[in-house]
């Protein structure tokens, strides 16, 4: 039934789902804000409604904590969804996501370097970067890992699945060993930082971080959404893509850079969140189509929607405390993904997609 929908209607449906999830996420939590109250706070924030002193605390919690968190979560979900789609397209492989290829682990290592050694003489040259040091190092780490795996796994214009897996495992192992070493030598607050960060969390969300990630995503999305056709043509192989006038040499590197940039920026803010990048494109492929002109916008919307739902769950499960996001995405994402695989295996007689 969903397959019959046009791309536009499908995207509209996802957008409605996302809007509902965002409203729910803004409303539910330690503090519960009814719709009417949320509307009033937003009105007051824009000075459309006169301020009242009685609800200052509620208003501040909503405007300074809850809303930036909703924005950060939404955009992070979109980043991970789009990134999974782009990477599966670039590697021409259904198992690729930022976690597998080492983008996230490399970015995590880069960020951990700054957390632990940031104040020390060894990284004194990062001082002029100020608070931008974390994203910059995260980008450098993520990019190095991605490029290494891509170069190793690609030969003669094709990506070899086994080499890809092995290279991904190796790069992940080295990166986590590095991060592990850093947390071992770190003093307590830094080590806690790294642990939290490895599981992903939105608890530290503020407007500054949310806006940085949002702007980065907006730019990267606008750059990458133009490559839907190119990624489709790449499914045929690099030579065939060239024959249709889309030269992979011209779009593979820009896409790798754009992809790593937005993942590193999101990872620098919220830490490593697994499975969203893997599951989102697959759900869309199964529900409708593997056409990248559909998948890129679709995975932004679905990734954002899922992330908001998961964030609400994270706040409710052990309230008033909350779970790290990465735990929930792995606990929920992995079985869902296995379920999809098993269903496909049964239906399709062994092929990944029947």
């Amino acid at each position, binding site marked *: 039934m969903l397959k019959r929908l046009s791309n536009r209607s499908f995207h509209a449906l996802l957008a409605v789902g996302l809007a509902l999830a965002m409203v729910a996420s803004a409303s539910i939590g330690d503090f519960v804000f009814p719709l009417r109250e949320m509307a009033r706070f937003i009105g007051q924030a824009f000075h459309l409604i006169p301020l009242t002193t009685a609800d200052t605390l509620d208003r501040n919690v909503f405007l300074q904590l809850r809303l930036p968190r909703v924005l950060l979560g939404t955009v992070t979900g979109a980043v991970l969804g789009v990134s999974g789609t782009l990477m599966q397209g670039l590697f021409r*492989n259904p198992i690729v996501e930022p976690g597998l290829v080492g983008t996230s682990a490399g970015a995590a290592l880069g960020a951990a370097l700054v957390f632990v050694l940031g104040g020390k003489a060894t990284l004194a040259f990062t001082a002029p970067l100020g608070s931008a040091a974390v994203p910059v190092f995260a980008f450098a780490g993520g990019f190095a890992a991605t490029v290494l795996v891509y170069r190793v796994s690609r030969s003669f214009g094709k990506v070899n699945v086994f080499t890809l897996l092995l290279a991904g495992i190796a790069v992940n192992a080295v990166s986590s060993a590095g991060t592990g070493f850093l947390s071992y030598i770190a003093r307590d607050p830094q080590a806690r930082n790294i642990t939290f960060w490895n599981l992903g969390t939105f608890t530290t969300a503020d407007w500054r971080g949310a806006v940085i990630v949002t702007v980065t995503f907006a730019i990267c999305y606008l750059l990458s959404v133009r490559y839907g056709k190119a990624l489709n043509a790449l499914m045929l192989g690099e030579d065939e893509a060239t024959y249709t006038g889309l030269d992979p040499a011209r779009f593979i590197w820009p896409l790798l850079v754009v992809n790593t940039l937005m993942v590193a920026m999101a990872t620098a803010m919220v830490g490593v969140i697994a499975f969203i990048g893997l599951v989102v494109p697959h759900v869309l492929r199964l529900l409708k189509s593997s*056409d990248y002109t559909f998948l890129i916008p679709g995975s932004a919307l679905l990734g954002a929607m899922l992330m908001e739902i998961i964030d609400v769950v994270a706040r409710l499960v052990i309230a008033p405390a909350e779970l790290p996001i990465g735990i929930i995405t792995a606990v929920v994402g992995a079985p869902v993904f296995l379920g999809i695989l098993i269903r496909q295996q049964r239906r399709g007689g062994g092929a990944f997609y*029947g």
Partner: protein
Amino acid sequence: MVELHDVSFTAGATPILHHVDAQFAPGRFNVILGPNGAGKSTLLKVATGTLKPSTGTVRYDNADAASWPPDVLARRRAVLSQHMELPFPLAVEDVVLMGRYPHYARTPARRDRDIVNQALELVGMADRRQQIYSTLSGGERQKTHLARVLAQIWAGDDASGPRYLFLDEPTASLDIHYQIHLLDVARGLLADGCTVVAVLHDLNIALRYGDTFVVLSGGTVACATDRRDAVSRELLEGVFRVRAHQIVDPIAGRTLWEFSL
């Protein structure tokens, strides 16, 4: 007209083509023949503009092919290779639409959709347009790609002017029905002046469909001719390392070759 003048190609230190001259005429079915490793696929890649020759020039109707932007070239020149796997499920019509990619920026126009439908009609796949590519048989997959390359250089399109279709062993692993169908469709393009260039392996099929012949051997041209009878017994025996003898088809009166070691 596609003209290769004094083309050599070296991969690393290995020379693959030496001083190859070849002309592929418009409105003719130009066949490249030769044993495995003779450099046929490399020659085709150089002729399509995918590989840059180490020395020599490739000209498309007197324009240097290397000077054309990739999308301009793609509106006039399409290439069909051996059948391909797709890593993800796509509907047949989405695969054929890829042929229209050089013709539109973001969303396909009504005209692009029409051409996709006509191309599917032409190859007899119109009733399969919604089917997932990976569920097709090898022959149907190749028909899908044939429709794709036809859509890419569709006649009377915005890029009116010369069109070039290259076929790289298009019939490998197809059964005889699909072989004949594919080559008949390709011959159908000759009437409106398309230049068709095909690398073929089956010598009898090649001689039946071809108008001009380039026989490659060890990276050089052993024979270039537009006469079927110039493809002689001595030539075939020397180049393919077989013994050949002629038989005559008693019904159509065509010459056929029979080979043994």
